[in-house]
Structure formats: C-alpha cells, structure tokens
C-alpha cells in the first residue's frame, strides 16, 4: 500500500524486494523499508556493538534516533559515515556497514579485558591521573588511543550539500498523531504549512501502534493530511530532522536525500540544510522511553518496550522468542499484546506498581505486581531475568526484556528556543512550559499521552497557531482515533535500583558506559551540580546526547541527595538534536566557494601577463608578474625598479570610489574628511584622512572636485564597505538636511595607475585631446577611444596618473597603456612592488600603519588637519592624543640582521617592546632593508639604533630610527 509520502507504510513493507547489504563483511538480505537494525534483527543478529569503555557486548536498545548502542560506520571512501545509528539508516542496495569500537572483531574484542580492570577506571579516572608523579604523561597515549567513538573517513567528501531558505506560516515538527492533527488544523485554515519528520515515513507512534483515525486506517488519514498541506502551498519533508531552534523563529532542518553512505540520486545533493523561518512552530516530537536500572541492563536482548513493538509491528522482525516485559506504566500491557500478536511468548509482565491496567493482559499473561528486575543472566545474549517479587526472587528464562521506565517528552527544540520546563511528578519527567518564542508543544512531547489526547492536543495547537496569525480556525472536531489495543492510561514512578543489584553493571548511559555506581561515585566525591556531574562522568555526552540517559541519571543523583529531579536540575539542550554532517553545515561554500571571490575588471588581462594572484580580502589581485627564474622578491624588485627608472602600471580598480554630488557636497565632505576639501577648485584634488568619532584614523584617500557640485572621493580597498556605511550614516543621521547624494562607484570604474619618470610622456602620447594634468589635478580625456578620467596622483613617489574608466571598457585602455609602458622599458607591477614603492616614499596603508589605534598626530599628519568641524575633531582634543610617548610613525633603516614585518622593536635585547615594524621592504635602487614602524616616542628617537626581534620566526636584527621617507624627500619627482 502506498502512503502519503510515496512509500510503503507500517508493517506493509515490500517483502517481495530483497536488498543485499553487508555487516562486518558478511552479506545479508533485508527488505525495502527496513532499517539496518531491523534487517539484522530479522536475521537474528543480536550483537551490534561494544560498550565504549568496558567493551561489553551490546545489542539494540531503541529503534530510532535515541539508540545509544548500535553505532556503525556506513559507506565507503568519501561517503563513509561513522557513528551512524543502525536504527537510523534504511537499507539500500549495496549498503556496507561495519561495527566499531572493537578489535579484532565484534564477537572477540580484546577491549573487553577492560572489564577486568573496571574498578580502576571508574568515572573521571583520567582526571585523577593529573595529580602527582607524572601519571598523566605515562597513561596519556593509552587513553588517547582508546578515546573517541568511531573513525573519521580518510577520503574527501564526494557529495554536495545544499543550503536553502524557506518561510512558512506554521512549522510542525513531528508527524505522529499530534503533529498530523496540528498540520491538518493549520492547513485546513489556509496556512502555509511545513510538516517535517525525521523518519522515512510519517505516522510516528502509529507506525508501531496502528490505529484508525476518523474511520480510516492511520496511513490513509496521514495521506489525506499530507495532501491538504501540499495543496495549501506547504511542504511535507520526511527524512528531515529539525536540528536546531534558533533566535527569531529560525529552525534549521537537515533533509537527507540519500541514506548514510548512499550515493544521492543524479543531480541531487546528499542533504539539504533548510534555514526555515516560521511564523509559528508546533513541536510535536513525541517522547522517548526511559530504560530501567538493573544489573546487566545493557545485555543484548534488553531493549525499550516501544522499540520491541516497533520491530514487531512496523518491521515484522521478531525481537525475541520469549519475553519478560517490565515497567512502571501501562505500556507493559500494550507491549505484551503487541509482542504476543507477533508470536512472541510472554514469559512475564513485571509491573513495579501494585495496581495497573490489566484489562486483557490479566487474563492472557502472567503478571508480577509490585515487582522489578534485579539482574540479567547471559553472555553475548540474554538467557534469563532475575526478578524480585513480594514473594521473593524468581529467575525467568527469556531472550528478550522489553522495559519501560516511563516516557520522556522530547523537549530539546522547546528548550533551545528558550522555553522553560516543569516537573511532572506523575510522569516522572520534565514537560515544556513558558514558550519564549513563537512555539507551542503538543502531544506526547508536551507530556500529553494517548492517541485521543494527542490528536485533540495537536488539533488545538494547530488551531491556536493559525489563530495567532490572524486566520480563522478550521471548523469541525479534532480527529477521532481508535485502536484495538489498550491505550496506556496510568503511569507510575520507575523503580530504583534494587538493593541486591550490582550498581557497577547497572547502566545509566549506555553510550558512555556510565553506571549507577559512577553517579554514586560522583556524589561521594562532592559533585552536586548536574553540570559538573555531566562533565565528570560524561553522562549525556556523545552522539545521543543523553536521550535515554539524562533523566535516569538525574533521578539517581536526586535519590542520593534525597531531593527531587527538578531540584537537581537538568543540563541545557543545545543544537543539534542529532549529529549533523559537517558538509551540511558548509553547503555549497566549499572549495573555490568557501568565500566569495571578487574578480578585477581586468582579470583576463592580468592572466595574459602571467599574474600570480594574491588574496586581498575577497579580491584576487596580482601579487607580481614573475618571469622565468624569478621568485616574488626578485619580481617585485624588478617591477619597482622599472617604475623608478622608466614607467610601470598597476591595477588599482579595487580602490573605494564615491561620487559625492549636490549643492552641499563640499559641506558634507568637510564633515567626513579631516583636511580642507570644500574650497578645492574644480579640477583639483587633495590627499585626506577620515577619522572615527573617537579621533582615531579610520581611512585615508583623496578628494577631487570634478564640478561645482560634484566631487570624487577615494579611500582604501579594504575599507570600501566600511566607508560606504560611514558615508551613509553621516548622510542620513549626522547631516540629514544636506542636499547631497553619495554614489558608490567602486565597481563602476576600473582604475589603472601609471607611474614613473616616463609616465608623463606616455600619457601625452596616449591621452587624446588633453595635456596630462599636473600633480593633484584632473582631466577628462579619451584613451583607446574610451572616455576616461585622469587624475594626477602618486602613491609611488614618481610622477604618476590614475586612469578611471568604465569597468567594462577597461581592457582597451589597459592594452594601450601596457603597449606604451613596454615601449619605454616598463610593464605592469603587482602588490609587492607597490608595497616597496610606497614604503620607500613613506606612505601609510590601512591595516599596517593605520591600525585602528593611531591618530593623525601619531602618523605625522597634524599639519593636514582643519581647525574643526570634522568627525572625530572633538575626541582628538583629548590630552592623551598629544602625549609624546605614544606609538608614532617612524622610518626604520636596517643596520644588521633581519627587518621582518610585524617584529617587535625593543631598546635592548630582552627589554619590553617599545613598538613594532608595520611594513618592511628594501630600497629599490640600492641595497638595504627599510621599513616603517610605530615606536613609543616616535621621531624624538631619531638616530637611535634599536633591536628588532621576532621570536616566533627566530629572526632578529638592529635598525636605525629615521624619518619615514627614503625617496625624494623634496617631492620633486612627481612634479613636472
């Protein structure tokens, strides 16, 4: 029978289709719809794993994502996925699974020798090795070798993962009876609904405990609900886990398109991570059954009662031949009926209560009231249960114990969203209260159990959600459910560990091998906080995050303190709910797309010149154009010398550029810039600095007056986005009344700087219709037929021009300039050469000298400043900015040894740092290391020889403090 979700439903698995798979190298055959766990169970494989620490044999405890024992590695190569729950991977042809945490084999594991030394390795034993005698150092290699669950894949991931956003009116998490009813109520009211289900099938508890809803089989009702959700524009996503509930209604969904280790369908990603923003969220994630405490409760054959019913009813895999069913609530009777129907002999029902729902069961099965399991008998398989009854201890032969220690509502997402929890003493569990975001909880996840109750509660939650959105609730009554098996009606408190049981083999946390004795030990050693208990014992850690163990551990801790569990507290649930593959977090942002890549308008032209690319923020810029036999240093020096001796050109398209226009443009720029710019004549430009409101230099650049009411402002590449925000803030907040507009032109204009003693002659030859503008003047012209703006500006200390042209028209201009450079013995230069040239000229750069701490005075720019009226002026008056011992800009001249960038400056070896090297290079036309630095006392220390040291690189040297200007101090070379 086909379900609403395109596949088979419940027990109606397609038994006609066999699927071959391997487990530990042995081939098995399962059926479509089986989980790996179910298929192995059907083949009578009971041993699926080993305990983490003691390597005790382990079988299946659960049937879903809560499974702590049956962790396997699935897949091969780059698709290998460790720590996969065998209960959470569905069979596919060719599935390859291996057990883990055992050597040499699952059946014969030498790690089991740890059981012999168990008394020496209790909870937190490794912490104790930190004390005295270097014990830790001796045992560390062994502990590290034994630590960790599973092994990571050794090959790279071969699949892709998608990130996708979505929005909806109502998100319903969980498709059990409550979730389906909620989705139905919302969809019928016209809401756009997302219904997500971590299982491959919708139905939740209906899959193990079949029922009729509104007179239809559960599967048909589920199909109808799915149809209504879709017809309302919503989605039904199975195999999708709501892994995190974050702020502002953001819920992260992980949708599998392929099972672990399985190649996805052609064209599909392996998984999609949905970032879903829902206006309302209904959490209907159901509950997880708790195990009972008794000796040997980890033996293969001991499992949760709900899991036993799931295997028996949904998968038609008989979990045992003869069962003892133990618990503290009426699930024991439901389980007995269910297993008996599957052909399992019910040896005994062990009910810890004196009374209970014994309707049909009383007549059909042997019942021991007021009783509990003390211990189990067996090796790698269960042989018997020892129970304590009012009449004394009994030994009952069995190969299955189905236990129910009560239901724990799944409140993880509720708590992640900031919701609170209340202790429900009758259920022995925490239930959600006080939602902090747009969430509601329904059904078993809210502590409301039973089919009819869950349906009604889900219907209510769905209706409340749409009402909160302003929609009218759907009419009609909640769906009516009917089951032919007794519904649980009454719960009791789970029995504690029996007095004659061995606490050292009564496991609280199966995945981390935490026993009741470990909890007791932590208590004796003074651990009172539940958070400390968790860290000391590892209770609730690892892949299952304590889904079956947390409350059992808390209860044990509470018993030790003679308190109640709410007084002991509960650890915080954090995302993800279940483990998330790292690839799903990365999405498509891998490889070349790990971050955006920005290409220059002249990218192809640089490629043609054999550019070596240098990341510069998101940009890729030419570092140098290396020739045969050159390293970067040689290439940079050759390129820089060409600029000093002939002419070179560099791509400076990444500079921030802003058109500032309007009648008040000058007034606006006076606010932004610390230098005077409003009185510039048309066609003239000026170097400037921009300060933060605290008086610190934020950026530097140039301002050019292109018309009466039009200016061009440039600033640094790295600060382009920040500058855009600063200008916008100033425009809209500080000066809203000014008639001025700011238009970013960084991407509109490519820019090429031409520099060198032959630059003017080249420009004269190539610029059509104009004389090259003088230094700090501008002119409009044409080059290679393209309209350009030419600025007389130098960043190298040579006569230079910056040519601005529309970005898509830049190539012919570059080619024309390059031809002119070549004809004069020059060529293109990259970032390294540009750095050599600007250091030699003493030009500062954002990120090195402009480091977010320095004032204009520190950089020797005090004479540039206007009297007042610019952003940062007020703060700049603070006396601290005038202290002479501040870090101030100096030049550094190598005396001996190295002059490494970033190195410390010290007065003598071993002294405290008195500054650091901000930029380092070499002289372009003669030998010698030079650099710029920030030094306490600055140029007052001119002439001193000080130490330079970089301990991390093992470099040291001595430098002389000099003026930060090594080339053409009079500035003759950039003037005609």
């Amino acid at each position: 029978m086909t379900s609403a979700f395109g596949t088979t439903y419940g027990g109606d698995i397609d038994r006609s289709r066999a699927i071959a798979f391997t487990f530990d190298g042995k081939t098995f055959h399962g059926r479509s719809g089986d989980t790996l766990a179910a298929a192995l169970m059907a083949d009578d494989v009971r041993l699926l794993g080993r305990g983490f620490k003691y390597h005790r044999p382990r079988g299946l405890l659960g049937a879903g994502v809560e499974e702590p024992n049956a962790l396997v590695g699935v897949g091969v190569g780059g698709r290998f996925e460790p720590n996969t729950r065998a209960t959470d991977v569905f069979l596919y042809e060719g599935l390859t699974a291996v057990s883990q945490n055992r050597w040499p084999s699952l059946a014969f594991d030498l790690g089991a020798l740890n059981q012999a030394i168990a008394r020496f390795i209790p909870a937190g034993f490794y912490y104790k090795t930190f004390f005295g005698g270097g014990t830790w150092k001796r045992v560390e290699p062994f502990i590290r070798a034994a630590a960790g669950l599973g092994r990571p894949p050794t090959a790279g991931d071969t699949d892709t993962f998608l990130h996708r956003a979505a929005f909806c009116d109502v998100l319903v998490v969980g498709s059990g009876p409550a979730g389906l009813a909620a989705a139905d109520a919302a969809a019928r009211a016209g809401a756009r609904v997302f219904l997500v289900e971590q299982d491959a099938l919708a139905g939740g508890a209906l899959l193990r405990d079949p029922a009729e809803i509104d007179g239809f089989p559960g599967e048909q009702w589920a199909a109808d609900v799915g149809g209504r959700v879709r017809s309302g524009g919503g989605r039904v996503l199975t195999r999708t886990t709501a892994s995190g509930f974050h702020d502002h209604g953001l819920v992260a969904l992980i949708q599998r398109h392929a099972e672990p280790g399985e190649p996805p369908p052609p064209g599909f990603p392996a998984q999609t991570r949905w970032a879903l923003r829902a206006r309302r969220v209904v959490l209907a994630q159901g509950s997880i059954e708790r195990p009972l405490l008794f000796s040997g409760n980890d033996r293969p054959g001991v499992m949760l009662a709900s899991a036993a019913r799931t295997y028996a009813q949904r998968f038609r895999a008989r979990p045992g031949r003869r069962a003892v069913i133990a618990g503290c609530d009426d699930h024991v009777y439901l389980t007995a009926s269910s297993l008996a129907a599957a052909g399992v002999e019910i040896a005994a029902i062990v009910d810890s209560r004196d009374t209970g729902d014994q309707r049909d069961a009383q007549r059909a099965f042997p019942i021991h009231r007021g009783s509990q399991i003390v211990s189990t008998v067996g090796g790698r398989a269960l042989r018997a249960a020892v129970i304590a009854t009012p009449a004394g201890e009994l030994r009952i032969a069995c190969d299955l114990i189905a236990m129910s220690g009560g239901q724990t509502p799944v409140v993880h997402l509720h708590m992640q969203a900031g919701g609170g929890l209340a202790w429900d003493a009758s259920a022995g569990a925490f239930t959600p209260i006080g939602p902090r975001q747009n969430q509601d909880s329904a059904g078993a996840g809210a502590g409301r159990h039973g089919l009819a109750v869950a349906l009604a509660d889900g219907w209510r939650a769905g209706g409340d959600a749409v009402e909160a959105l302003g929609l009218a609730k759907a009419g009609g009554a909640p769906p009516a459910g009917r089951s032919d098996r007794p519904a649980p009606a009454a719960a009791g408190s789970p029995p504690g560990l029996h007095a004659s049981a061995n606490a050292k083999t009564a496991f609280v946390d199966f995945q981390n091998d935490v026993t009741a004795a470990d909890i007791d030990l932590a208590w004796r050693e003074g651990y009172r906080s539940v958070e400390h208990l968790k860290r000391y014992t590892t209770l609730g850690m690892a892949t299952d995050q304590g889904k079956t163990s947390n409350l059992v551990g808390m209860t044990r801790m509470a018993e030790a303190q003679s308190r109640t569990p709410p007084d002991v507290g509960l650890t915080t649930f954090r995302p993800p709910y279940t483990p998330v593959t790292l690839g799903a977090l990365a999405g498509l942002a891998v490889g070349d797309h790990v971050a955006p890549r920005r290409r220059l308008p002249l990218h192809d032209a640089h490629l043609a010149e054999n550019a070596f690319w240098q990341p510069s923020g998101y940009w890729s810029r030419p570092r140098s154009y290396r020739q045969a036999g050159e390293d970067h240093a040689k290439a940079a020096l050759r390129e820089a010398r060409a600029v000093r001796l002939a002419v070179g050109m560099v791509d400076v398209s990444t500079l921030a550029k802003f058109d500032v226009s309007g009648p008040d443009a000058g007034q606006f720029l006076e606010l932004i810039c610390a230098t005077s710019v409003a009185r510039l004549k048309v066609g003239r430009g000026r170097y400037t600095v921009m300060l933060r409101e605290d008086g610190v230099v934020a950026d530097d650049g140039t301002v050019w007056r292109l018309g009466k009411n039009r200016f061009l402002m440039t600033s640094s590449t790295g600060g382009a986005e920040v500058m855009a925000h600063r200008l916008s803030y100033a425009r809209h907040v500080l000066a809203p009344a000014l008639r001025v507009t700011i238009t970013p032109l960084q991407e509109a204009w490519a820019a090429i700087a031409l520099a060198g003693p032959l630059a003017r002659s080249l420009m004269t030859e190539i610029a059509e219709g104009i004389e090259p503008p003088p230094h700090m003047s501008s002119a409009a012209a044409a080059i290679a037929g393209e309209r350009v703006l030419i600025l007389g500006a130098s960043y190298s200390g040579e006569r230079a021009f910056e040519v601005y042209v529309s970005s898509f028209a830049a190539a012919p201009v570059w080619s024309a300039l390059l031809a002119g450079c070549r004809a004069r013995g020059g060529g293109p230069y990259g970032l390294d050469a540009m750095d050599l040239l600007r250091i030699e000229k003493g030009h500062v750069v954002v990120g090195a000298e402009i480091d977010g701490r320095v004032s204009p005075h520190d950089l020797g720019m005090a004479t540039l400043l206007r009297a007042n009226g610019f952003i940062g002026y007020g703060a700049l008056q603070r006396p601290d900015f005038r202290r002479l011992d501040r870090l101030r800009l100096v030049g550094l001249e190598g005396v001996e040894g190295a002059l490494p960038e970033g190195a410390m400056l010290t007065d003598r070896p071993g002294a405290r740092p008195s500054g650091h090297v901000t930029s380092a290079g070499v002289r372009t036309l003669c030998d010698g290391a030079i650099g710029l630095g920030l030094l306490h006392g600055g140029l007052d220390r001119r002439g001193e020889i000080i130490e330079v040291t970089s301990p991390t690189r093992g470099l040291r040297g001595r430098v002389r403090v000099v003026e930060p200007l090594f080339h053409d101090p009079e500035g003759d070379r950039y003037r005609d």
Partner: protein
Amino acid sequence: MIPRATATVIDATLIEVEPAAALIAVDIWAEVPDAREPWASLLPPFGVSQDLERGWRATGVELARWWLIGPLDQRSRQLAFLAEQMPDSGTVVDMTGAIFSIRIIGGRWRSLLMVGGVFDAEDPGFGIGSSVGTLLHHMTVRYDVLSDDTVIVHVAPSYAQHLLEHLRQAAAMIDAMEP
C-alpha cells in the same frame, strides 16, 4: 528508504548573462517625487520596477533613489535629458559598469533564489515588477521580477563569476529535485 528520483528534467532553468547596459542613478532631495515634476511619472515606488520608453527600465532602490537601466548607446542622451529635467531637484550620476545582470528563465527561479539566499522569493506577494536588494550566497544582489518565469539578478561585476557558478550549480540541483 528515501524515494529515488525518476523524473527527467525537460525544462532546465536557463542562466543567461545580460548584455552590458547603461546604469544611471537618480536621487532627489525630497523623499517622494513631486507629482508636478515632469519626470515624476518615470519613477516607480520603492521596491518596484517599471519599463520606460526606448528600452529603459526604472527601479526604486531606495526611498529617494532610483536606478535607470537601458541601452548603452543611449547613455549620454539619457544623462543629458535627466540632468536637464531635474537641475535643482536632485542628482543624476552615471553608474554604468557598476552592475552585472543575470537573467534566470524557468519556472523554478523562485526555488533557485532560496538556495544560499535569505529572502522569501517564494512569497506570492513578490510578483511581477517587484524588486528587492538582498544577499545571495554571501553576495549583495538585487532581484527584478520580469514575469512568472523570468527574473533578473543584478550583482556587482566583481562577484559575477562567483555568482554565475553558484547559480548554475544550484540550478542543476533544483532542476533535478523539483522536475
């Protein structure tokens, strides 16, 4: 037990690069155009695009800022016309070269723009003529809905190659998943 895809994609989403176009930014000092001004009718409300004469299209990108995108060979004439029309009301700036435009054709463009996106492109209210600035795959973009099966994505040219690669990769997956 995930159902396997069996459908064949027969109408793959097309990702096409638009020809280079002129881009003019128009700003006015007032927050809304003065209806008495002759150019006021050219300028749609914020978040809306509309076609103008001779192949130009206007988009309200901020409350008092518009983009005019049109044929490259008409750039100078349009600039002169606008400057003449509104000498004291605001500014007209040539931004040509500041955007790279990508045309997405196919019924799945809304799903495609949700991949790596943050804006609800699937909202039915985001209809023909709507325009919005948002982020896509960590890049600043602007959408302009031309029809039920066509949208234009504007992006800064430096990001264009990166965005094209993303869109093509994502489109192939969306086409496969939502045939």
